[in-house]
């Protein structure tokens, strides 16, 4: 469940290559010497996928052991590199959020970008770390997970309530036996008292 990289690109019309607007990647799990090559690979594949994604479409491509999810919205394209276990829906909702955030913070200035911007965008880096857990990105997933937890807790509760019921049943029996015994005791006491006044 790992996100390796998130990219925001401007998907130019078919002929030209897309222009990278923001880039955040987490290559910590690669060896030191592989990191730069992995970054290049990310950039290249991101450009390729973004150029092949038609506008207002979502796309998922399997590349070696990564799944690349791309979402193109009116020329602004967000690309994410995830592993196979990351749920696709969460990936796309994450890309949605990234695009919304980008549009909010940068307005329309990206339309005029002609070359790769190298300024890091802190939001993207934060998003990368925050959304390693797919539940953060996808509210539905979070809700489902919490509901499942609640269901399990409720099952346990019902089990304990059933046990309580059994104990209450045994208590009721014991108390009824006790009341019977005390009644016999009372009768005996009354009998010994009232019967033999002489002797």
């Amino acid at each position, binding site marked *: 469940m790992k996100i390796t990289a998130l990219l925001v690109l401007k998907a130019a019309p078919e002929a030209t290559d897309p222009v990278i607007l923001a880039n955040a990647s987490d290559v910590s799990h690669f060896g030191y010497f592989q990191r730069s090559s992995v970054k290049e690979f990310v950039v290249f594949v991101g450009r390729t996928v973004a150029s092949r994604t038609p506008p207002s479409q*979502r796309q998922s491509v*399997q590349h070696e052991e990564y799944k690349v999810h791309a979402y193109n919205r009116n020329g602004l394209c967000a690309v994410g590199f995830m592993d196979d*276990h990351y749920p696709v829906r969460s990936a796309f909702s994450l890309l949605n959020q990234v695009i919304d955030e980008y549009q909010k913070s940068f307005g329309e200035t990206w339309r005029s970008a002609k070359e790769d911007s190298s300024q890091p965008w802190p939001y993207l880096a934060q998003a990368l770390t925050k959304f390693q857990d797919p539940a953060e990105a996808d509210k539905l*997933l979070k809700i*489902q997970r919490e509901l499942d937890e609640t269901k*399990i807790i409720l099952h346990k509760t019902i089990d304990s309530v059933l046990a309580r019921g059994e104990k209450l049943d045994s208590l009721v029996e014991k108390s009824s036996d006790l009341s019977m015994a005390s009644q016999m005791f009372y009768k005996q006491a009354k009998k010994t008292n009232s019967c033999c006044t002489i002797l």
Partner: protein
Amino acid sequence: MQARHVQSSYRDRTDEFSGIVESRRRSIAPTAANNAPYGSGGRREDPRSAAANQSEFSKRASLIGLAIHQTSQKLSKLAQLAKRSSVFDDPTREIQELTVVIKQEISGLNGALLDLQAVRNNNSHDNDERSISRDTTSHSATVVDDLKNRLMDTTKEFKDVLTLRTENMKIQEDRMKKFSKISSKESANPFVRQRPLASKPSPSQPAPLPWANGSSSSSSQLVPSRQGEAESSPLLQQSQQQQQQQQQMVPLQDTYMQNRAEALHNVESTIHELSNIFTQLATMVSQQGEIAIRIDQNMEDTLANVEGAQSQLTRYLNSISSNRWLMIKIFFVLIAFLMVFLFFVA
């Protein structure tokens, strides 16, 4: 033919009956020319129809018996297939086909058996008493009962095989989960709904081929959707197709929307289940509240009884320990002795 064999164990009198019918027919035939055509026709029809009905009945019964035998054979084959619980060679399709076929046969046999019963009732109502003897009716009733019993046994076996099959499938799923969990090195979080399904569909389904057209994507969607949120596999196949054909855009969008819709449905159904659980919990707790009240009453009764008994005993103790009565009693006893003594001596 097992049905015929069964019939012969009940003293097969069919030959006697056909002989009687022949003799009757011969005796009626000379007089038929003189009598009114309708009456003779009716009477002549009777023994023939009786014989025809009887043989029709036995024919149907034998057919039903044969069909039951065939169904039980298929059922034993199905049971064998279901018991083969290997992880990789899963004859799911065959088992499902066999199941459907057997179900159809059983329902057909049910209907045929009902028809047979109706035919028998018609026979006993339409014909006169002289052509249908008591033996025949009891014989046919016994045959129908036997066939019904055998059909019931077959149905029970079928149900057992189905339960066995579902258990085996569950075991297989657990095993698959165990294997695939080991291979993915995930933390054992029971709340994780995403199972590493990328490894799972490949060995068990031969259908998804990467060069298959868009029509296969729907079928491959159906099977993983059975397992819950399994978007990874259809999208995996679709992304492979995309690298070769670019016509899969629209199904992908639909898949995305469908997945969201499905997840929402899941959430809604989970909430319903939760509400059910809560109502049950409330019911149970209120019932237990009544029990608690009863316990309380019992304890109060006990307390009252014990207090009454204690007062009685204290009174008793007081009466025993006080000396007044005792003195009077001793005095009376002494006086009595004195009287007796004086009386007898003096």
